[in-house]
């Protein structure tokens, strides 16, 4: 048996180390480690609750905005604030735009190079590439275009300065795309580097700037005068452009890549899924969520209702004190330091060894995968018509059965499906906004009292680009007494728990074939399919709190 450590895992947000044990060409065991700790929850204590959304947004600059959303909702829950309709819609529109940006960036910039061999593209026949793009892509390109692209690529490689493409696994036997498909994908990799700029502009229309938006706060959104025809039409125009890109380029590319890698519909799957749901279409939550709330257990396509009180976190294998699973509302987490920390060197050899800064979240005692696949599965069985139709269409196109979704490729495909459905629904929300303003409702903010007399507890749950995100807050005398974040990448990339159950990524890696342990390309495929975003996962701690407070279920 061979132990392989991949550190750093590139093309993710944050600092991740993956260790696997390989026997007979397959992964037998796996350990996922977050190697950075920042301690944002400690920093939040004693601050103005309204500032939390700005501070927690700095958890991650890739999935920017989303921590702000969860934070303002947590404060609004604690202070019992009902936000105006315009604010709800503007938040949905900005969040949808963020997803429309994030998912294609994940596919092209973060995960495509695991499936696309850039060097092989140099062998492509431009004429055949043009024919291929005519057949599979919604934006076919000419022979002349591919000649130019190939020439540009060749000049770059010949310069000897390969920049970010240096020293990769080019030529690895696990790469299966023909040279022409590789060349087409390289073209779209470059196209999306431009497209993502436009997609980010959409979030800035009412969110001021991206990364790290500044357009809302507890109580609503700060824009009023900007809810004008000019900005609404700007948003709608950009939205339609992004939908076109997703429909014509992103989704066809996912299908084209999948058709060459069908064995990956049997690799890298999980059985338990959780989705908090998101995109409220009315005041009542979670009932009006467009993507519904729910869980799937043991691989069964049956919806299990979600009770937030069943969420626990466990630190058995994490660099914190504590030995029993606790609900995030009952924070009792203390990071190890000094001699106890032993330099934070991952111990994956001993059964009880500590090897990560991530905690192990569980739902009803089970490790749950979160993210677009969970969102699609829960929406599929939970009655979202558009998701069901799109999933069925994709499965038919690939001649695959629903169980193919429980896989590495299923995860990548689900992300594209959710992206498209989410953006299309944003057209309706834009119309809702117009109708509401037409009615004469220009309210964007609900005022509230926040002084030393104010106490309250609450939480905000969102389901964002990378999955289920929750913030829990305890306000005492108008200040933050306690703050907890349980984030998507902690769910997915967390370690083993007290019961010895592996985290979802660790579990998904088991059985992954590895042709060459020195070039573990296949491991990157499954790890990247989760779209890891580690900066927000590793500061989820609250070492000074031993406060036990009542958990409130709305």
């Amino acid at each position, binding site marked *: 048996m061979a132990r392989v450590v991949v*550190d*750093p*895992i*590139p*093309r*993710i*947000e*944050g*600092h991740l180390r993956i260790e696997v044990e390989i026997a007979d060409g397959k992964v037998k065991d796996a350990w996922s480690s977050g*190697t*950075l700790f*920042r*301690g944002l929850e*400690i920093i939040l204590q004693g601050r*103005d609750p*309204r*500032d939390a959304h*700005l501070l927690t947004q*700095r*958890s*991650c*600059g*890739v999935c*920017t905005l989303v921590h702000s959303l969860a934070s303002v909702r947590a404060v609004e829950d604690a202070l019992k604030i009902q936000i105006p309709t315009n604010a709800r819609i503007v938040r949905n529109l900005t969040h949808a735009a963020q997803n429309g940006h994030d998912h294609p960036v994940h596919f092209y910039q973060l995960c495509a*190079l695991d499936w696309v061999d850039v060097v092989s593209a140099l062998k492509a026949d431009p004429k055949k590439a043009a024919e291929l793009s005519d057949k599979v892509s919604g934006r076919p390109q000419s022979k002349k275009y591919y000649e130019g692209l190939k020439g*540009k690529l060749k000049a770059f490689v010949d310069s000897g*300065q390969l*920049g*970010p*493409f*240096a*020293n*990769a*696994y080019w030529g690895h036997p696990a790469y299966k795309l023909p040279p022409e498909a590789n060349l087409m994908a390289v073209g779209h990799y470059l196209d999306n580097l431009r497209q*993502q*700029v436009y997609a980010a*502009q959409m979030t800035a*229309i*009412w969110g*001021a*700037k*991206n*990364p*790290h938006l*500044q*357009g809302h706060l507890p109580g*609503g959104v*700060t824009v*009023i*005068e*900007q809810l004008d025809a000019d900005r609404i039409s700007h948003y709608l125009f950009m939205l339609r452009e992004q939908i076109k890109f997703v429909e014509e380029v992103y989704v066809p590319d996912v299908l084209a890549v999948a058709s060459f890698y069908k064995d990956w519909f049997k690799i890298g799957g999980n059985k338990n899924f959780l989705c908090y749901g998101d995109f409220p279409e009315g005041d009542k939550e979670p009932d009006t969520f467009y993507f519904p709330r729910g869980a799937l257990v043991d691989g069964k396509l049956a919806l299990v209702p979600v009770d937030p009180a069943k969420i626990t976190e466990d630190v058995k294998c994490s660099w914190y004190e504590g030995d029993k699973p606790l609900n995030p509302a009952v924070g009792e987490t203390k990071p190890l330091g*000094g001699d106890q*920390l032993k330099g*934070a*060197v991952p111990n994956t050899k001993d059964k009880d060894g500590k090897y990560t800064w991530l905690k192990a979240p569980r739902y009803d005692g089970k490790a749950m995968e979160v993210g677009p696949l969970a969102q699609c599965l829960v929406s599929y069985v939970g009655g979202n018509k558009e998701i069901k139709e799109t999933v069925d269409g994709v499965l038919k196109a690939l001649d695959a059965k629903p169980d193919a979704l429980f896989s590495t490729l299923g995860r990548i495909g689900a992300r594209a499906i959710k992206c498209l459905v989410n953006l299309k629904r944003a057209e309706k929300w834009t119309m809702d906004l117009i109708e509401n303003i037409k009615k004469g409702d220009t*309210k964007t903010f609900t*005022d509230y009292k926040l002084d030393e007399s104010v106490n309250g507890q609450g939480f905000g749950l969102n389901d964002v680009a990378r999955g289920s995100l929750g913030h829990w807050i305890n306000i005492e005398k108008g200040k933050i007494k306690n703050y907890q974040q349980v984030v998507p990448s902690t769910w997915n990339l967390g370690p083993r728990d007290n019961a010895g159950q592996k985290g979802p990524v660790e579990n998904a890696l088991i059985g992954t074939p590895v042709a060459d342990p*020195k070039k573990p390309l296949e491991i*990157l495929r499954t790890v990247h399919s989760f779209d890891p975003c580690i900066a927000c996962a590793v500061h989820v701690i609250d*070492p000074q709190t031993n406060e036990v407070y009542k958990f409130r279920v709305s």
Partner: protein
Amino acid sequence: MDKPIEMPERLVEKGVSRRDFMKFCGLMATVLGLPMSFVPRIAEAAAKTRPTVVWLNNAECTGCVESFIRTTHPWIADIVLDVIDLAYNETIMAAAGDQAEEILKKTVAEQKGKYICICEGAIPTKDNGAYGQIHGKTMLEMTTEVVKNAAATICVGSCSAFGGVQAAKPNPTEAKSISAATGVKTVNIPGCPPNADNMVATVVHYLLLGKLPALDDKGRPLFAYGYLIHDNCERRGHFENEEFVKVFGDEGAAKGYCLAKVGCKGPDTFNNCPKIKWNQGTNWPVGAGHPCIGCSEPDFWDAMAPFYVAKY
């Protein structure tokens, strides 16, 4: 009449259009505050062999990379393919694990004193830096080696420049700026994140003139951080007229009045946001009716908070 600017052959071969190239050179001259007569020199500098850049991500959120890739003049693909040799950047590089580490080692050894190091994120220093590790090395150890051997170190973002969010009170991991952690003097382009135009302009200034731009006492390029937000704010007239937003969502907010009474830190913050705005001029915080939070000032998480309480 000056002779027409030659389009560098290297770029012609790579399919960069003359229009894009000149747009880039012109924009750089504007951002840097240089007269247009400098455009040929910018073109000349950009045409040389691509200088190697090592981009380190330490205790951060990757928001600075995200901001950087939203540059459009030039587009990020053109920067990476034609302007610089981005040898190491964990967010976009293809290589992983040992192969990634190998690139870094090789670059530091073979291009000692020649490469530019761009740092994003602070350095945790508590317990000898155990709170942040890459490839089994602490960030403190790895970064110290890379910046000490670099021709110049440019800190992008308030974390690498001043410590940033993880260094906010009580600073649980004793996070420090790059210069405080390593003792190396750095150019600082603070902001949370900084604007892509300011990052690109600083790099180009170095390539163009072979030296770093004029800096203020906090290491910030004066071309971007020489004026207060307040001085160039589009709502300055309302401030002078004493027309203020008193509560979010009020009549003043609907009229775009000054945000000083709901916490704006524009009067204390040096940055060029009102001039260049964000995301290709789409908007900026005050434009969206949100107070400036002073994100390019040292220790702003403590010095400027609470963010929604008026200081003036």
